[in-house]
């Protein structure tokens, strides 16, 4: 019988059917960070249970770590307690930890691929909704809650019902300057933030095939913003080349890799396999995207205007009004007239080396606009080293930007990097919710190139005009 890629991987991980559509699903990789894991480890301890597979469990500290020079000196007592707890829990249970200060520390969804921890055909979970990122390898990856974290620690399985299959085909070729981030923002704008609820997206088509691994990671990362717990891309030569390149400690090498690739080549959706939903998006005329509201679905072309209250199909006029009030915008304003005072380049969405290269290419030899604060935060220490080797850090610093150490930073304001009330940020992160980047802060989601262009001009500009 013809099967989708998702169903193939799912079926291969069913340990047992539990009835009522529920299965016991085996989990190949469990990624752990400091914020959602302490209670799970404590629960295990209270019940006298052990971590079943410490060798399948990898942890780091990312959400609440400072990213400045003084990062090892954590002054927030809660953040420190969470970090200390993870250190102790990892030591006690034998889980691999990349602690603050380690060369491999970074945002969990950046280091998983980078270290070769996540590979095609795997099931991957983490107590974080952006776990969907890892689907870019052709794996089933999704976020879980604290009770489920404990369940995976204890049993290396989860009780799950299979989601529906939703095919998103991106056709055509992107124009120069238009990126994976614009593709996924466009998708979310079309289907809304609940459009993929109960589903797993499979991203396919010419425009996906033409993307690098890093671009695919960006798209899968934001599957959750389209309501789907998971999104995935069938592995191909791009995937295999990525895994074979660089210093990926946990990836197979040599003959083991050749054997693995032969297996991974079976990971695709069969001809004639049925999807529950299908959507086709032509990207050949896609413009760079900028969000204007307080939900990732509130997005438009950079060439467009802030919409009228009744002109947004996925949101009620009242929702749009509330969003515009919060954002301090008026319907009809040109997107390119929106002035920003902060730029954040980083996060699990856009904190990889290609993202930094993309931003650096725009900023090179220019100066940041007067009064604009620019934070460039590599997604991992390995990305930081790579960027410094290419001297990207100098490009940013000479332009007037701040060059930081790895962490989640201003994506979620759980650490010292925050927006102040009414500050307006062009951000390469994934959520523009009220207060997400700091209480009262106003977030516009964009690609790294668009963020860099906004940094130089002090307002949004169509990156295509600068090329």
């Amino acid at each position: 019988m013809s099967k989708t890629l998702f169903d193939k991987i799912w079926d291969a991980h069913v340990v047992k059917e539990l009835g009522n559509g529920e299965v016991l699903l085996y989990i190949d990789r469990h990624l752990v960070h400091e914020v959602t894991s302490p209670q799970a480890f404590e629960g295990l301890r209270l019940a006298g249970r052990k971590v079943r597979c410490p060798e399948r469990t990898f942890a780091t500290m990312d959400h609440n770590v400072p990213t400045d020079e003084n990062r090892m000196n954590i002054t927030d007592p809660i953040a420190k307690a969470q970090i200390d707890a993870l250190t102790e829990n990892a030591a006690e249970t034998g889980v691999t930890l990349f602690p603050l200060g380690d060369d491999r520390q970074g945002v969990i969804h950046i280091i998983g691929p980078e270290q070769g921890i996540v590979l095609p055909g795997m099931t991957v979970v983490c107590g974080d909704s952006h776990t969907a990122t890892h689907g870019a390898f052709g794996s089933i990856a999704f976020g879980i809650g604290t009770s489920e974290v404990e369940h995976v620690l204890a049993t290396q399985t989860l009780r799950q019902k299979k989601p529906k299959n939703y095919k998103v085909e991106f056709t055509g070729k992107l124009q120069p300057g238009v990126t994976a981030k614009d593709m996924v923002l466009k998708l979310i704008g079309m289907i809304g933030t609940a459009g993929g609820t109960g589903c797993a997206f499979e991203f396919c088509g010419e425009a996906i095939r033409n993307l690098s691994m890093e671009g695919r990671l960006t798209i899968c990362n934001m599957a959750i913003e389209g309501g789907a717990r998971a999104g995935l891309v069938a592995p191909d030569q791009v995937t295999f080349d990525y895994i074979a390149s660089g210093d990926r400690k946990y990836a197979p090498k040599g003959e083991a890799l050749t054997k693995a690739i032969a297996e991974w080549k079976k990971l695709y959706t069969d001809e004639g396999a049925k999807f529950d939903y299908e959507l086709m998006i032509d990207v050949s005329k896609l413009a760079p995207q900028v969000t204007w509201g307080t939900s990732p679905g509130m997005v438009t072309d950079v060439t467009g205007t802030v919409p009228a209250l009744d002109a947004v199909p996925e949101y009620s006029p009242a929702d749009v009004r509330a969003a515009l009030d919060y954002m301090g915008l008026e319907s009809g304003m040109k997107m390119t007239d929106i002035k920003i005072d902060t730029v954040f380049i980083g996060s699990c969405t856009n904190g990889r080396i290609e993202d930094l290269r993309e931003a650096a290419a725009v900023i090179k030899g220019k100066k940041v606009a007067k009064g604009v604060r620019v934070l460039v935060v590599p997604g991992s220490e390995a990305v930081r080293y790579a960027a410094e080797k290419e001297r990207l850090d100098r490009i940013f610093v000479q332009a007037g930007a701040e060059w930081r150490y790895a962490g989640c930073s201003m994506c979620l304001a759980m650490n010292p990097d925050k927006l102040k009330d009414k500050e307006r940020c062009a951000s390469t992160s994934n959520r523009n919710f009220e207060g997400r980047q700091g209480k009262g802060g106003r977030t516009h989601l964009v690609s790294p190139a668009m963020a860099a262009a906004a940094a130089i001009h002090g307002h949004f500009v169509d990156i295509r005009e600068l090329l």
Partner: protein
Amino acid sequence: MEKFKTFTGTVAGVDRANIDTDAIIPKEYLKSIKRTGFGAALFSDWRYNDDGSDNPSFVLNQPVTAGAQVLVARNNFGCGSSREHAVWAVQQYGFKVVIAPREGTIPAFADIFRGNCAKNGLLTIEMTSAQVDAIFQTLEKEPGVKGTVNLEAQQVVLHAAAGDQAYAFDIDPVLKNKLVNGLDDIALTLQYADDIAAYEARHK
């Protein structure tokens, strides 16, 4: 998870509908690395004065009901956020049971809260409005009254001065089995440890 055994304890009533998770445990208490220690924060906005002292008029601060193990409230208990901390707070205060009435289409308990209770071994009992009205009347006359909760017999008995009052209830048999046998999801899954090991052996 501990097995749910028949017990006799003090019954306390909070006569309100729609008690939300923010009322059960305000969000400033969520910043913790522990799964324990939330009992002191239960109902903190009602239980404590602004200066942190006990509010003597709140039911749990009255000597006869302090340390109660059976909580009675009105419908839609536990609505609001999905925070598991709300369940931990109710349970760690010492409650083993929460009783609330279904009123037409309005549920006794919010869905997520009820699910989280099941994961943590806190028994949620749905009764009729008439039953809960009768319990509140008894509590008003006899604060600090004791009750016996027998899950196997699906019965709550209030030991009122004028004689015992029995209240029967229905419960999902799967949930009942989990609670009576102390099977949390992890324990249930660990029953399949052999299947998991066999899967691992096949995929070496």
